[in-house]
């Protein structure tokens, strides 16, 4: 095929697409329920023209022209944003988006399913784990981790209840004080008992000494 021929083809293709687009626009405008496209965009274009008119009225270009251009850009973007926002807020847009998503899922769903099963088959043949198997394993690890966390929680609760039943520092100090006092009293008691034992043994000795001569004098009489 010559270059000239190919250019001709491209030209006719372009012409055809232009004709189709024009036809589509004509159809659109002939439908009574479709809003007037010009009315729809007029606020945006109007704002842009107003801005440029204002800028030109201010006189010749100055170094501030960049700032003016930025302001124009910001205002234009804001105008676009408002227009698009209004369009997207409508039920019509939501319905169109819903239909698009539905068609997308209708196409993607079977493809994904098909790919998944063929991939799984391939991986099984290669003796490799599939994504689903790895995911299942990860789910099991997560479930184990959750059980460990539950155990840790139980441990914490048991620790808390034990800690709640343990005596306080004040109670321990009081108890220690009582033990010290008891110890002191015991020591005193022990001293008294020792004194008593000493006295008894001294009394015993004295009794023994008093009784001894009589016992020795009896056989000689």
């Amino acid at each position, binding site marked *: 095929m010559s270059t000239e021929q190919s250019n001709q083809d491209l030209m006719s293709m372009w012409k055809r697409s232009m004709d189709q687009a024009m036809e589509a626009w004509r159809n659109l405008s002939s439908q009574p329920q479709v809003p007037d496209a010009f009315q729809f965009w007029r606020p945006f274009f109007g704002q842009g023209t107003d801005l440029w008119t204002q800028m030109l009225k201010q006189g010749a270009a100055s170094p501030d022209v960049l700032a003016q251009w930025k302001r124009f850009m910001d205002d234009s973007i804001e105008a676009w*944003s408002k227009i698009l926002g209004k369009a997207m807020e409508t039920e019509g847009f939501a319905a169109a988006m819903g239909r698009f998503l539905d068609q997308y899922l209708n196409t*993607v*769903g079977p493809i994904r399913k098909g790919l998944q099963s063929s991939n799984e088959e391939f991986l099984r043949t290669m003796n490799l784990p599939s994504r689903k198997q790895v995911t299942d394993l990860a789910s099991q690890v997560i479930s184990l981790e959750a059980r460990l966390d539950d155990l840790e929680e139980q441990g914490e609760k048991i620790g808390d209840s034990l800690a709640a039943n343990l005596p306080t520092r004040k109670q321990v100090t009081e108890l220690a004080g009582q033990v010290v006092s008891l110890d002191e009293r015991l020591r005193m008691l022990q001293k008294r008992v020792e004194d008593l034992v000493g006295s008894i043994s001294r009394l015993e000795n004295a009794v023994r000494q008093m009784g001894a001569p009589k016992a020795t004098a009896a056989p000689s009489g």
Partner: protein
Amino acid sequence: MTDWTFPLSAELAKTLQAETIKNLQRFSKGMELVYSPKEPGVGQTPKELIHKKNKSTLYRYGNAADRRHALPVLMVPNLGISRPTIFDLYPGSSFIEHMVQQGFDFYLLDWGVFGDEDNGLTVDECVTHILPRMVQKVLRTSRTRELTLLGYCMGAPLGACYAALYPEPVKNFVNMAGPIDYQRGGFFTTWLAKRHFDVDKLVDTFGSMPAEMIRMGFKLLKPTMELSTFSNLWWNLWDDKYVTGFLAMNKWANEYAPFPGEFFRQWVKDFYQENKLIKNELTLGGRPVRLATIRCPLLVVGAKQDYICPPECCRALADAVSSSDKEYFELPGGHISLIAGRGAARNVWPKVSTWIAQRSQEG
């Protein structure tokens, strides 16, 4: 020979010179951004990991010496959609840094990025298992019996459900741009309506709500956002501070996180399509969720131009609870302006921290 002067006034010449220098700076900074981009250092406030449950992590911020308030604050952000780096962007522009500087014992629950293995996770599990465990960990670590729960975006309804089911440990509740009445949920209420959006089909096809689809949905909220972002970047390219902020924000704005499938299904059906939370029809973990059981002090913060959670959508919480101490606060700006940016640092953060500080006494 006559004297010739350039036909420019001194003032005009000065402006021209300044503009030329700015443009040269724009050009050189632009080249630097394209050819040797620097990784923005987000999340620099010191933190320690307190607990991890599956993908969810509990962090505690700041140092013991700086903590002046008796009650800890637990922040619950959105699950999925984006990462919580927005709360701690960079020094000088971080909500968490502000809260730490105000003397709060601050905790953040990072839900994490869920994978295919978490597709069975539900809203029930988040509210009745993960949240209670994290609250327990906060109370144990801070050795208190109560805390302030701060929910941002989707974290607020999750937090409100928790506060309704387990009111004991919640001393104060703050809702920052968290949707409550989904009938008034703006764009998302229309887009996710049952008649247009088949959530079952989507979850059954993908198993989850993929991050790419979430990105598409959020970009659609304001399609001109990218254009204005980059136009502003070009305009401020000479300003180092602006570029640092842009890089950090841009990193966050491009990190989308998927929703676990079952969570998304329940979220869309129970919250957006049937609006069960405000109607008192929601049941989690077998227990009815009644917002009226919330009696603690409540602060609701809304943003006037919030497309994600319009002011009237979050304000509904103030009407639904039984608290006697409740306040609603609204300011200009969008959803993100509440938590990041100069406006947030000037108007929102001090308001929130002062409100919590006044109610942070134990007992």
